[in-house]
């Protein structure tokens, strides 16, 4: 028999003999095929995160299982299994992702999931594989939460469910398509309840700490050396999206501050400040409200406009005026922020901070140091000095480029400023900060993103990695911290119109294909990408970004007061409604179709009569039924004759034309008879 399990053909001599595995416990062929396809689908997305040998394990197991099925190979012996398991554990250990990292756990899960395939003998084993499949689908979301992946996982889910469905079907159901259809139907029927649970079920804090994926995410880091930001422009990955409540500020106003690099060490800048601002600024007039949907960064810093605060429970303001999250951002993080007007009287900075913000390496870049001292002596105020520096950049042949020459050694800034004279934003900002600090003026490097692209479809702002930017701030007792962007002097287009306008054609050509499409070289591709982005944005806004904060707000709006009892009642009502809708749809699909109005009327009549004990047999025609009932009750021919004739004519004589009037007359006759019978029986 074609659908017989492989156990029949290839009995395992070592464990249960073939006869012991009864037909009832065998895995049908259909299930096996679906299970293998489903397993492949489940493992496939892990390719991005896990090392390639795990896929090899999966392929190997698939091949083995196929050969078992064909009767060529045997089930693995016990020692073979032991060796395989040990090899997989060793493999995970050797991959070197950390013993208790999420990657290691997922690798272990996926490899064991694959190995279970060749061990699987009876139905119980198949169920284990199926539940592992569900688990693996869920685990994948710890790594990524994009829309495409979610859609893909729905497909995997249906495949795995189809395997389970087929496991419970008769052996004769050897085709996978009906099982798939049923599984898809089941999934569709689960949608209403899923929605209700998604909206209402409390987002609980995890009971244990999940090990987090390692940081292999592109983005700004807390230390910057010349060239780091330029590398980021190679990536078109999304950094974050912003929804602005009100008019979108112009590009030159969109400085998204992320990190403040205050410490100068070993020729590079470091951002270390994590302390909370002690005196939280009093509520000032609100300038702009916006909401940021930050892509996972695995870091704690957030991006915000200058002078912004947030009321999010997990977000706080740091001493250097940035927003920071209490926990690393592992999935899309959604926070509202408010930009305030600039304070009238700036807060003074402490001596400790003044020292930190003026520290330079006294031995590095001597020429810049000398220039800084000369400039302050000449111009007096920090503002005048800044103006002079920017003028010099404008006047002299400085160039803005993605691929500047490398400036080696301790005196790299000297090399850039006096000899190379071509660099990216961080070169100009670094040199500027160095000049200011040499003059004893507190100044610091700021990293973040500048500009971003507005998606016209949904009106949100997309900020990508290639929008990464570095600029500077100096401190003036009257102005407070004041933003200076030396890049604006060398390449004003960068600030006003974005990266593509500022780059030379050679630089543009060096960008990856997608980036250049996004930057706007191809209109069609660009608009498709923008459309996809707006879909993804809504997904983030409504699904991924639906965290406990948003949920609490929504529940507050819906229920008035959020407490356990109300949430419980809401889940009960919502779940009941959801299931009710599904039940209605199912019953609606199964309702008998009475196309003929007379048949419908008569059926209602006969069903009503069944309640009084006059049950119509299926083979009784309407006329025969009425006659029988009339005979039983003892009605005279004159009382039912017209009705019988009418029923006969309207139902079966197409030669007689009739309309709504005849139908109504018939209905009222039926009602009268029904009434008479009901009355007769109660008496």
């Amino acid at each position: 028999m074609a659908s017989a399990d492989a156990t029949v053909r290839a009995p395992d001599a070592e464990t249960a003999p073939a006869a012991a595995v009864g037909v009832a416990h065998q895995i049908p062929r259909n299930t096996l095929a679906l299970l293998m396809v489903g397993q492949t689908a489940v493992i496939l997305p892990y390719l991005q995160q896990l090392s390639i040998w795990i896929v090899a394990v999966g392929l190997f197991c698939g091949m083995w299982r196929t050969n078992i099925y064909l009767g060529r190979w045997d089930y693995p012996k016990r020692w073979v299994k032991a060796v395989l398991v040990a090899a997989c554990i060793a493999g995970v250990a050797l991959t070197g992702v950390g013993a208790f990292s999420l990657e290691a756990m997922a690798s272990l899960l996926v490899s064991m999931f694959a190995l279970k395939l060749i061990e699987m003998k009876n139905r119980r084993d198949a169920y284990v594989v199926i539940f592992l499949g569900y688990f693996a689908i869920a685990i994948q979301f710890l790594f990524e939460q994009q829309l495409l992946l979610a859609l893909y996982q729905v497909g995997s889910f249906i495949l795995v469910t189809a395997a389970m469905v087929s496991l419970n079907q008769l052996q004769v159901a050897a085709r996978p398509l009906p099982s798939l259809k049923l599984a898809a139907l089941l999934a569709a029927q689960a949608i209403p309840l899923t929605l209700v649970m998604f909206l209402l079920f409390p987002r609980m804090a995890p009971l244990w700490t999940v090990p987090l994926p390692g940081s292999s995410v592109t983005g700004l880091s807390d230390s910057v050396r010349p060239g780091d930001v330029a590398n980021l422009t190679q990536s078109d990955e999304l950094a974050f999206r912003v929804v602005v409540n009100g008019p979108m500020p112009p590009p030159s106003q969109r400085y998204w501050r992320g990190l403040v690099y205050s410490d100068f060490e070993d020729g590079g800048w470091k951002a270390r400040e994590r302390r909370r601002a002690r005196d939280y600024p009093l509520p000032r007039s609100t300038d702009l409200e916006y909401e940021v949907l930050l892509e996972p960064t695995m870091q704690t810093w957030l991006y915000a406009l200058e002078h912004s605060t947030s009321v999010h429970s997990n977000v706080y303001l740091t001493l250097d005026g940035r927003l920071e999250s209490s926990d690393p951002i592992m999935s899309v993080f959604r926070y509202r922020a408010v930009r305030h007007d600039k304070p009238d009287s700036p807060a003074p900075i402490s001596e400790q901070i003044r020292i930190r913000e003026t520290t330079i390496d006294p031995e590095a870049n001597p020429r810049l140091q000398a220039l800084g001292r000369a400039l302050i002596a000449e111009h007096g105020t920090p503002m005048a000095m800044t103006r002079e520096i920017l003028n010099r950049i404008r006047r002299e042949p400085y160039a803005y480029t993605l691929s500047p020459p490398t400036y080696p050694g301790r005196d790299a800034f000297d090399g850039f400023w006096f000899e190379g004279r071509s660099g990216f934003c961080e070169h100009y900002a670094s040199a500027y900060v160095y000049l200011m600090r040499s003059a004893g003026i507190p100044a610091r490097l700021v990293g973040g993103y500048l500009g971003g692209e507005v998606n016209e479809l949904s009106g949100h702002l997309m900020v990508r990695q290639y929008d990464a930017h570095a600029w500077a701030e100096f401190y003036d007792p009257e102005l407070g911290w004041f933003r200076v962007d030396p890049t604006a002097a060398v390449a004003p287009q960068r600030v006003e119109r974005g990266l593509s306008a500022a780059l030379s054609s050679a630089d543009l050509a060096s960008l990856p294909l997608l980036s250049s499409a996004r930057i706007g070289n191809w209109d069609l591709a660009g608009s498709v990408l923008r459309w996809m982005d707006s879909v993804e944005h809504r997904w983030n806004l409504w699904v991924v970004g639906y965290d406990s904060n948003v949920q609490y707000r929504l529940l507050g709006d819906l229920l008035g007061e959020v407490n356990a009892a109300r949430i419980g009642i809401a889940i009960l009502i919502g779940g009941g409604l959801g299931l009710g809708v599904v039940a209605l749809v199912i019953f609606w699909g199964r309702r008998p179709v009475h196309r003929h109005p007379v048949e419908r009327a008569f059926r209602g009549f006969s069903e009503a009569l069944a309640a009084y004990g006059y049950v119509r047999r299926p083979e009784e025609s309407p006329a025969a039924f009425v006659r029988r009932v009339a005979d039983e009750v003892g009605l005279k021919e004159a009382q039912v004759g017209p009705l019988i004739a009418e029923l006969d004519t309207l139902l079966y004589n197409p030669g007689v034309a009739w309309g709504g009037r005849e139908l109504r007359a018939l209905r009222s006759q039926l009602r009268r008879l029904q009434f008479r019978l009901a009355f007769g029986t109660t008496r």
Partner: protein
Amino acid sequence: MKLALACLLARGHLLIEDLPGMGKTLLSHALARVLGLTYNRIQFTSDVLPSDIIGTAIFDRERGDFRFIEGPLFAQVVLADEINRATPKSQSALLEAMEERQVTAEGVTRPLPEPFFVIATQNPSTQTGTFPLPESQLDRFLMRIELGYPDPEAERELLRGGDRRQVLGRIEPVLDLEGLSHLQALVDEIKVSEPLIEYVQRLVAYSRRGADFAFGLSPRGSLALLQSARAWALLQDRSHVVPEDVQAVLPGVVEHRLREAADYTGHGGGALAQKLLTSVDVVG
């Protein structure tokens, strides 16, 4: 009897099945006489050959040519007596004749006379020395009827009277060719309403879906059912078909077309027809 008449009015072939001595041959004889049509009788035995039925070409010495001698099939009413005693080979000679109303012999296709009826009689195939008719052949009979034992009243009459064959000789044709074709045309004019067609469809669908049925009714089966019901309605003097007409002809039309899934030998047709009747709702 009435069913047999309805069958002929519906232009269908009739299969009469019962035990020997129940009056099958007599009935078919009588039918042919009443209708006043040309009439041939073929007595099937196991050594009847197709050429015995269709006819054969023999060499005509005078003309120096082959001449086709028409077999007994070339008549308006053919009584195929004891059809299941013939070998399958000869049975199948009737196949083309019954459906296409033409025969092909010696490479020449010849039309059969109009109208053309086959009335076949057979003994139940459990009787010794019979060849069960194949499904393809059975399907070509519009109806299969059983005569059953006569009721006591009729049997007493039977026993009192003399030889029934003599009665046969006294039967006068009551119809001529024109009268018959007029009646047949009337059958086609009997009206059928949508709900009734749906009822027939439900019956057919049930036979195709039901677990007890080895296979369902063919489209030819459903057509036959409706056409017989029309003829029955005409005999009831009604201008349209009602469910009772369908139910009256249903056993005759479907019994020989159905097989039980559990017992493929073909003796469950009657039970299946009853199941159809009692399971399928008249009202949609």
